[in-house]
């Protein structure tokens, strides 16, 4: 029997390879690509349950005049434009500091800064919600240090609620990105820096002329994954601010969830909104690739 199967696999090596990948391909098609097509069809429909029917481009017209969608889009972009660069610069800065061979307690610093990554998004969101509450520890601390006179409305003020979300995401993900930069830095040959030092290049110049260009692929990778992550923001806004106050921190993912499962279900319109994230992710990834390529 076994001999037969060997002979068969040698006769048909084409098929064996396809068999190895077949289950994964089927599952990805069934649970990613097929739903994507379904979502596209849904985005042209309206109604609920058995009443669902095609309406043409009505949902898309509604999208462009939808104030909540515009707010969610604006919020998501704000998180993206401020949070992602801050986090990437911070992670890069910390990893350059930690890459110094003469630095002590390196292992401790690295583990400590990476530690937030072991928390679940829901758990840390709940923790941040209480830490940043009106009578929470952060306000108590700032009041005692006389940094502020009145408690900051971290959760209930539209402006500060956004800041709280940004602080929270930065806390959770900076260490994660740092690990990627650290391992990339370890692959850079030290003699490049020595040569630069002999040529009299300052540490800042070394950073911009050597470190950043050599780390470009990794920076591109982390900025794309962070962008995709931020566009999918859900757990934090739901558990810290519930999208509020008003809709001040509502993200696109949360809006899709609300449209489908919280308000009167409108799967068709929810699918229309969801396609806007798909378009955004494709567009932004393309721009980031372009930007990285052009500045070479």
């Amino acid at each position: 029997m076994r001999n037969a199967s060997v002979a068969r696999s040698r006769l048909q090596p084409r098929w064996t390879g396809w068999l190895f990948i077949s289950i994964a391909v089927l599952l990805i098609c069934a649970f990613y690509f097929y739903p994507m097509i379904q979502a596209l069809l849904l985005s042209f429909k309206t109604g609920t349950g058995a009443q669902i029917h095609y309406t043409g481009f009505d949902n898309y017209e509604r999208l462009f005049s939808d104030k909540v969608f515009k707010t969610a889009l604006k919020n998501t972009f704000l998180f993206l434009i401020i949070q992602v660069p801050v986090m990437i610069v911070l992670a890069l800065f910390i990893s350059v500091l930690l890459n110094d061979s003469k630095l002590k307690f390196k292992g401790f610093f690295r583990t400590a800064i990476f530690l937030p990554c072991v928390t679940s998004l829901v758990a840390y969101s709940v923790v941040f919600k209480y830490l940043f509450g009106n009578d929470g520890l952060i306000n108590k601390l700032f009041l005692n240090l006389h940094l502020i006179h009145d408690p900051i409305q971290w959760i209930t003020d539209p402006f500060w609620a956004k800041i709280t979300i940004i602080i929270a995401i930065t806390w959770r993900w900076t260490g994660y990105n740092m690990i990627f930069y650290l391992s990339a830095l370890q692959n850079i040959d030290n003699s490049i820096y020595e040569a630069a030092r002999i040529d009299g290049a300052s540490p800042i110049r070394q950073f911009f002329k050597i470190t950043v260009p050599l780390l470009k692929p990794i920076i591109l990778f982390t900025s794309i994954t962070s962008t995709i992550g931020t566009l999918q923001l859900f757990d934090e806004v739901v558990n810290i601010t519930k999208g509020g106050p008003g809709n001040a921190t509502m993200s696109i993912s949360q809006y899709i969830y609300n449209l489908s499962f919280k308000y009167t279900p409108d799967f068709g319109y929810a699918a229309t909104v969801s396609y806007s994230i798909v378009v955004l992710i494709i567009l932004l990834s393309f721009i980031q690739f372009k930007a990285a390529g052009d500045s070479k």
Partner: protein
Amino acid sequence: MKMFKRSPIYIFLIIAAGVSIFPFLWIISSATNKSIDVSNGRLMPGSHLLDNFRHLTEQVELGQAMWNSAKISVTTTILALLIASLAGYGFEIYRSKAKDIVFNILLLSMMIPFAAIMVPLFQMFAKFSGVLPVIGVDTAASVILPTFTTAFLIFYFRQSSKMFPKDMLEAGRIDGLSELGLFFRIFVPTMRTSYAAGAIITFMSSWNNYLWPLVVLQSPEKRTIPLLISNLGSSYSPDYGIIMTAVLISTLPTALVFFLMQKHFVAGMVGSIK
């Protein structure tokens, strides 16, 4: 003198490490104190952990939620490793132009935001409820099935396969192993460390998954840990001691996995992009 020159660096790193660790200290101090002491700003660890734990288990089905989460995460991890490594191996070892095209198409699925496919997926599983209730809405299977295969993990195992010494396969073929035998008898045992890293990453993301279980699990006894914590956290009169005890317990498995297998963890994260 040298040490002195570095002091701004140390101060900066100490602040960064302190900010990173501080919420953990607060979780521990809150879980071990009475809620009233926590809201008064007490930071020292107290002796109320057991009381908090008792109140927590009286209020919610913690054990049930832990069991649900464990069941889902372990099954997801095993299935994910098996299917993704078979595929990653297949793409690399039986490489062909056509398969490379398929591979690149699969990678596109990484760009699909979950919120975009959530509604059709929910409809799909609602349909299953009528035909095959064991995988319908509100079952563990409905959480596991659409989430365990990820292009990321296939990509990861393909990258790992690149480092696999292919001569070993030829030797195995001469010994009369079937193609599937080569995979299970030679590839899997050789790549144990890749599997370890893949397991950690998959387990953690499954244990922490929130949005899809929130959509598909409806009855309280099916709830996973993140759903339970989210629920506790949204109560109007929160009991800090109880909630932080739940947060502490839910973080222990992932923290433990991280500390025991830190090297594998980092290797897994980084290996995936090399």
